[in-house]
Every structure is written in structure tokens, then in C-alpha cells.
């Protein structure tokens, strides 16, 4: 009797897991499937469940028609800028939070955490005014600056957690040998926390890659649209075939998935530990 119950329990848990897997994977599969369907199938005869792989050859031309490379290049520029800027600021801030005691340390941690509850929509208006003054509207640099403010604190938490875990003695002996604090950070700490730095960089890169709200309000010139804004616009105007929109969305999604899988372990430990300590 007990044995039967156990077998049933195992079967049930396998079944639930398979269900979860199907639900996770299906929308991505459907994006792929839709990108290979014709308009007639999509809006008339019905979408086939198996993908029309014979049409893969048409996809590059479709993507070229919507200028996806230009859009992705803008996204890549924003993402790279956010990553580099966040990295420089976050490594130093994380080092300070991990290695020093100073007045205002708790406040600094809270200020960094508080950026995670700021509704960007509230800041859009004042930032719009600020950027208008400095000629940063309609510029990718402006988008880099705005997004870094929200991405950098996450990088601080991830990197600080990693620095907390390495023993201080190594820096101490370097210090005794006359190594400057900047040298200790650059030559000892940074090489020891490389995996977490990679994780922080990937997270920041995809914050920039994901950026939509600021671009949607600040950018007027179509040539400067990131892929997120471009895709949302294509969806709204019916002149772009749905299959093309989906192919572009898939191309926009794949790099994110690949990079994320490479560093998910570091991301998770950094995010949780960072948040636990505020």
C-alpha cells in the first residue's frame, strides 16, 4: 500500500514538472512557429502546430525589411554603455560597502535599495526636463545615463556579496607591502570575484537591452529607437507582417537567453544575499 502511494507520488510530481516545462517553453516555441507562418495561415486557415521549416530561408529578408540590425545596434549601444558605467561605479561602491566602516553606510545601502522601488514613470517627467536642459533628449547617451541609475545598484549588491566572501588577509598583506587601496581593489579583489562581476555585467547588459520606457518617451527619431521600442511600434502598425515581428522578437530574445544561462548561478546568489543584507 505504502509502495503504491510512493509510486503515485513520484508519477504525479513528474507530471507536474512536465507541465511546468511545457508552459515555460511554449510561448518561445510559438514565437518561432509564428515567425515561419504566412499571414493567410495566421489570420485565416489557422496556424499549423508544426513549424514551416522550409520558410527559414525567407527570414533574413524579412528581418532586413524592418531594419532589425539598426535597432539591435541601438539596443547594444545602450546595453554596453549601461554595463560599462554601472561596472565602474558599482565595483568601487561595493568595495566600500564590503570593506569599510563609515558614517552613512546604512543610509547608502538604503538609498541604493530604494532605487528598486522607484516607479520609473514618476521620474520620467523630471528627467525629461533635466535632459532637455542638457541636450540629452533624443540621444542614446541620455538613455545610458537614465538606465544606469536603476541597474547599477543591483550590480553593487551582487559584487558586494562576492567581496564579502573573500578573506581580508590577502589585501592586508598587500597593504603591508605598500599596495595602495586602489591597487588592492584592482589587482587583488577584482580578479578574485570575476564570476560575480560577469554576472553583474550580464544583468546590467540586459537591463539596458530591455530598456523601453525612457526610450519610448525621450526618443523622437526613428533611427535611434532601440529594438524594444521598434518592436512595440511594429506590433501597433498593421503594415508589418506578424511573422516578421515575431522573427525580430525572437532575434531580440535569443542573446538574452544564451547569456543568462551562462551566469544564472552567480546572479541568483548575488541578488538574494545582497537583498538579505539590504
Amino acid at each position, binding site marked *: 500500500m505504502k509502495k503504491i502511494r510512493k509510486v503515485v507520488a513520484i508519477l504525479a*510530481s513528474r507530471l507536474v*514538472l512536465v507541465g*511546468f516545462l511545457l*508552459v*515555460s*517553453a511554449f*510561448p518561445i516555441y510559438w514565437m518561432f512557429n509564428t515567425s515561419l507562418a504566412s499571414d493567410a495561415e*495566421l489570420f485565416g486557415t489557422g*496556424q499549423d502546430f508544426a513549424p514551416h521549416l522550409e520558410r527559414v530561408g525567407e527570414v533574413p529578408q524579412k528581418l532586413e525589411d524592418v531594419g532589425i540590425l539598426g535597432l539591435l545596434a541601438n539596443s547594444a549601444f545602450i546595453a554596453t554603455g549601461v554595463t560599462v558605467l554601472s561596472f*565602474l*561605479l*558599482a565595483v*568601487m*561602491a561595493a*568595495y566600500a560597502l564590503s*570593506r*569599510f566602516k*563609515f558614517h552613512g553606510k546604512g543610509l547608502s545601502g538604503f*538609498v*541604493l535599495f530604494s*532605487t*528598486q*522601488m*522607484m*516607479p*520609473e*514613470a*514618476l*521620474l*520620467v*517627467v*523630471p528627467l*525629461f*526636463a*533635466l535632459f532637455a536642459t542638457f541636450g540629452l533628449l533624443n540621444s542614446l547617451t541620455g538613455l545610458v*545615463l537614465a538606465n*544606469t*541609475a536603476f541597474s*547599477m*545598484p543591483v550590480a553593487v549588491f551582487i559584487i558586494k556579496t562576492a567581496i564579502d566572501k573573500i*578573506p581580508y588577509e590577502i589585501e592586508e598583506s598587500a597593504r603591508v607591502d605598500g599596495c595602495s*587601496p586602489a591597487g588592492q581593489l584592482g589587482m587583488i579583489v577584482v580578479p578574485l570575484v570575476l564570476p560575480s562581476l560577469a554576472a553583474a555585467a550580464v544583468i546590467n547588459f540586459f537591463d539596458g*537591452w*530591455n530598456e523601453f*520606457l525612457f526610450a519610448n518617451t525621450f526618443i523622437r527619431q526613428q533611427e535611434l529607437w532601440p529594438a*524594444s521600442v521598434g*518592436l*512595440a511600434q511594429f506590433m501597433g502598425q498593421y503594415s508589418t507582417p*506578424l511573422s516578421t515581428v*515575431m522573427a525580430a*522578437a525572437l532575434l*531580440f*530574445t535569443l542573446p*538574452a*537567453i544564451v*547569456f543568462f*544561462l551562462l551566469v544564472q548561478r552567480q546572479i*541568483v546568489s548575488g541578488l*538574494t544575499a545582497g537583498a*538579505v543584507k539590504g
Partner: protein
Amino acid sequence: MTVVTEEAKAKRPRNSSSRSWTRLLPYLFIGPAMLYIAVFVMIPLGRGVQLSFTDTKLINPQGGELVGVENYAELLTSERFWNSFVVTVSYTAAIVIFSLILGTLSAVLINRSFRGRALARALLTFPYATPNVAVALIFLWMYNQSSGIFNESLAVLGIGEVGWLGDPDYGLFSVVLATLWKVTPFVMLVVLAALQSVPDELYEASRVDGADVLSTFRAIVLPHLMPTIRVVALLMTIWSIRRFEIIYLLTGGGPVETTNVLVINIYQQAFQSQKLGMAAAIGVLGLLLSLIVTVVFFIVDRRASLAESQ
């Protein structure tokens, strides 16, 4: 490890010139980041709070007049604002509750070793890596009333069309579903990391006692997970209160304002009604909501960790 670090610190030489230098040092490291947040978040936030006490319009952003608490007074008596408030709270509650349950469940299911586990975990994390706009686009298509896969599948079963995004009875449900698809893997990853730190001896001990799976989970695993789950609950809450893209692109706040969360309401007030002052006031109230949640969280968390350590 901490003890050794403290000792190492105590060994530092303490002459006066190095002391004043050391005192300044941490500020040199944290200064740039703080300055950055000040310029791009805190000062704009201050300006936002200031705007919320004016009647500033989008067409003349410099020309608003001070109106005191008029915007707030109008909001607190406005049905539209309270609707937004209720929608935000319902949306957030639904996301937090279901993402925690489903995320924990999938973490537990994937924690034991089996063939293809790495692949399964990768598949389960795909949604979290998918950009928001792509999530919105694919769900828009799947929810499509006449040709989407959901209604086509229902048709096969002989059930009529559902207006996933057009029917006020389904709008919020559909938005929650799409959001859950995107955010649940995050909960799973974090809970999975915590599960892997449960010492094997604990499992062994309960197995020897003859406890079944469920009671082992409740008595041993869950208490171990609680600190992690509380943090994830906080993150899920404050992220849900400010989530914009998915809702904006799926429904834009409709149908009949059933998905009009505070953040969408801010955007509409600012860029459609052109009332910047009013939009800022909603934003300030939304931020207050997040702040209250965070403070309550820290109080509850402190009490709970005290109780758990006893």
C-alpha cells in the same frame, strides 16, 4: 572568517596622518555611485515631489503654479485613483502569491537529480531571460481574440471565444498570467539556491523518523527556506508595484480600466491628459506604498528571524 578579518583590521598601524586618510577613503569609493544616484534619481525625485504640489501641464513644463495639496485632495476623492490603487494591490498580491507557490513548487521538483535536469532547469529559466517587450508581443498574439492559440484551442473543445484582453472579466487575469510566466522562474532560481544549502543530515534525520515527503517539507525544508522566501516576497512586491511594460503593451490599462495600475495611471495623466502635477502626485503615492511595504517587511523580517533563532 569574520573573526580573522576583525583581527587583521585591528593590526593596522594607527598613526594620525594615515588615520585621516583612511577615514576619507570609503567616501572616495562610494562617492561616485552616490553622486550618480543623487543626480539621476534623488534630484529628479525631489523635483517630482515638488511638481506634485503644482498644476504643471505638459505643454508648459516650466509654468506651473503652486496649488498646495490640491492634487492629492483630488486624487483621494477620485474613483479613478482608488480603482488604480485596488488594481495595483490585486495585481501585486496575485503575482506575489502565485509566483511564490509555483516558483517554490518548481524548485522543489527540480531539486532532486534526474536525467536531463540541466536541460529542464534551462527550459524553466527561459521566460525570465525573455525581454519584457518580447513577452508582451507573444502573449498579445496568443491572446488574440479571433486567431490566437488560446481561443483556437478552446474552439476545438467547442468553447466559444474569450476576450482575454478585451473583456473586463478577463483583463487582469490575462495580464497576471503573462507576468507570472515571466517572473516565476526568478523565484524558482532563488529558492533552488536556498534548497541546495539545506544540509543533507536534516533530510536523513527525518527519513529515519519515517516522515513522508510532505511533512518533511513542512517541518524541515520550509523553515529553512523562510528567510529566502521573505526576501523574494519583498522583491516581487516592489517590482510588481512598479511594473510597466508588460501591462502597458498588453492592455494599456484597459479594458474599462480593469488593469489600470498606478504606474499606467501616471503615464496616462502625464502624456495623455498632460497633467504633469497630477501624474507626479500619483507617483509619490505609489512610492509611499512601496516604502510602507518595505518598512513593514523589515519589521516582520526582524521579528521572524528572532523567533526562528529562539
